């Protein structure tokens, strides 16, 4: 059997794939956080809850409304995005003139409310969501077995990340967003409806989280706490990549997933902490993050 540094090849590539999948979720979630932080300057602590709501919408939609996976992939982000726009319009906007820490507190409170409500009804053990039939099974690649669904998750997540990057960096709407991040008052003086732009941005950011939630539903148990467990790691990813950097969020997310996967192979005890070690190192050497701009 082929060995890589004393580890069987199949185990090595298997963990690498798991790492990449985790990395895809980190990338999607930290991307949404970066987009929101850029324009609203709010660290969105409700982001994990939005991811969880995406997964729950998928689960409950199937159970009670007969909505299948593919429809949920579109509808759940849409529903969560609309909810996010309401949250921005009704709550976040009212505290927009205060210190941004209040936004953090508010979104943290919202996350607790969403989680607590769902724990009350569904408990914390989590429910299974079936893998869609067309994506059941997998490919035998010789050196490893590649489940179809995991390949799909990887493709979909990277596709959505690249689409978002293109929208922000290469289109006119994206130019409004970048400029609005720098100087919202001047953008208003040019005739851009910045409050509307802020609402749409928050909605889009949380819709990304919900999209990740739908992708996650067949992989992980759907439970009210699935988001808060993930969010801590995602925050570390954002810090490593650099606050507000779009490309940084994507690349760092994938890279951290890989690093985590490799650590699982060679030193499993450190797998849960390795990202935080990287974060500490980055903060020591480059406090603005790997892709962050100097202030």
């Amino acid at each position, binding site marked *: 059997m082929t060995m890589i540094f004393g580890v069987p090849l199949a185990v090595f590539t298997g963990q690498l794939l798991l790492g990449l999948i985790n990395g895809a979720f980190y990338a999607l979630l930290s991307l949404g956080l970066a987009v929101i932080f850029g324009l609203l300057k709010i660290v969105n602590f409700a982001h994990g809850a939005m991811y969880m709501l995406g997964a729950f919408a998928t689960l409950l939609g199937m159970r009670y409304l007969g909505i299948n996976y593919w429809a949920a992939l579109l509808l759940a982000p849409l529903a969560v995005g609309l909810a996010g726009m309401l949250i921005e319009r009704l709550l976040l906007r009212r505290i927009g003139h205060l210190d941004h820490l209040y936004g953090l507190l508010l979104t943290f409170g919202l996350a607790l409310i969403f989680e607590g409500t769902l724990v009350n009804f569904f408990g914390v053990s989590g429910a299974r969501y079936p893998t869609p039939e067309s994506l059941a099974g997998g490919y035998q690649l010789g050196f490893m077995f590649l489940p179809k669904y995991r390949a799909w998750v990887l493709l979909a997540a990277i596709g959505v990340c690249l689409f978002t990057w293109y929208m922000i960096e290469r289109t006119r709407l994206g*130019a409004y967003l970048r400029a609005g991040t*720098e*100087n919202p008052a001047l953008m*208003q*003086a*040019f*005739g851009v409806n910045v409050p509307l*732009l802020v609402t749409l941005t928050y909605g889009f950011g949380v819709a990304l989280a919900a999209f990740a939630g739908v992708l996650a539903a067949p992989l992980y148990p759907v439970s009210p706490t699935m988001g808060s467990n993930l969010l801590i790691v995602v925050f570390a990813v954002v810090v490593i990549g650099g606050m507000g950097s779009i490309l940084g969020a994507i690349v760092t997310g994938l890279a951290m997933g890989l690093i985590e996967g490799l650590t699982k192979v060679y030193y499993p005890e450190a797998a849960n902490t390795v990202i935080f070690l990287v974060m500490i190192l980055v903060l020591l050497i480059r406090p603005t993050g790997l892709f962050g701009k100097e202030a």
Partner: protein
Amino acid sequence: MTQVVEQPARSEYREHDGAEMLRIRNLHAFYGESHILHGVDLEVRRGELVTLLGRNGAGRSTTLKAIMSMVGRRTGSIMINGTETIGMRAHRIPRLGIGYCPEERGIFASLDVEENLLLPPTVRSGGMSIDEIYEMFPNLYERRRSQGTRLSGGEQQMLAMARILRTGARMLLLDEITEGLAPVIVQKLGEVLVKLRDRGMTIVLVEQNFRFAAPLADRHYVMEHGRIIEEISAAELPSRREHLNALLGV
């Protein structure tokens, strides 16, 4: 998706030549608790070039910001082309045909020169085309792929002006456009202003460099302590030069 940039309805913008483009009455402006403007009255007719003169802190920049609704609070009356704007939401005001060039220039670092140039949405038809703009400012064409803030101060100023010429705005509010620039650039900006005036643009110029403004302007307003204290026409200027110098402390 709702349009972030709504197209202005045709009726919002009425042509009436020779008429007032801007009429400000009893304008008060506040930043938080500080009361900056204390009852400003002024009017600008279509096609005029008017300056706001005064010492630092007299309220000239704040007057322009108040017109764009960029101050904390404002009261009084600001009529733009016959439309009352005092209660209007900030992003609707430029759509009445106003272009604003801020004192700090407001070039966006995350955008390249051409993106900066194309950024402000069109507020009205009849703006300059991108080719005309590059013809007027050849430097910007050469550096169109550079990051906006990597330009020299003079080029950034040209960019800040150029981008509001594309939008179809018919009244320009220009805040200290010559500040800190080399004489040759200041001269170039003077030539641009003459061209814009000849195109029928209405221009309100906040200017520290009186020698730059004097030959260009039709009228001058002098501000002090957040009020207009003097109005001087171009014809009256030679006889009142010393009085003006005393007011401005130069």
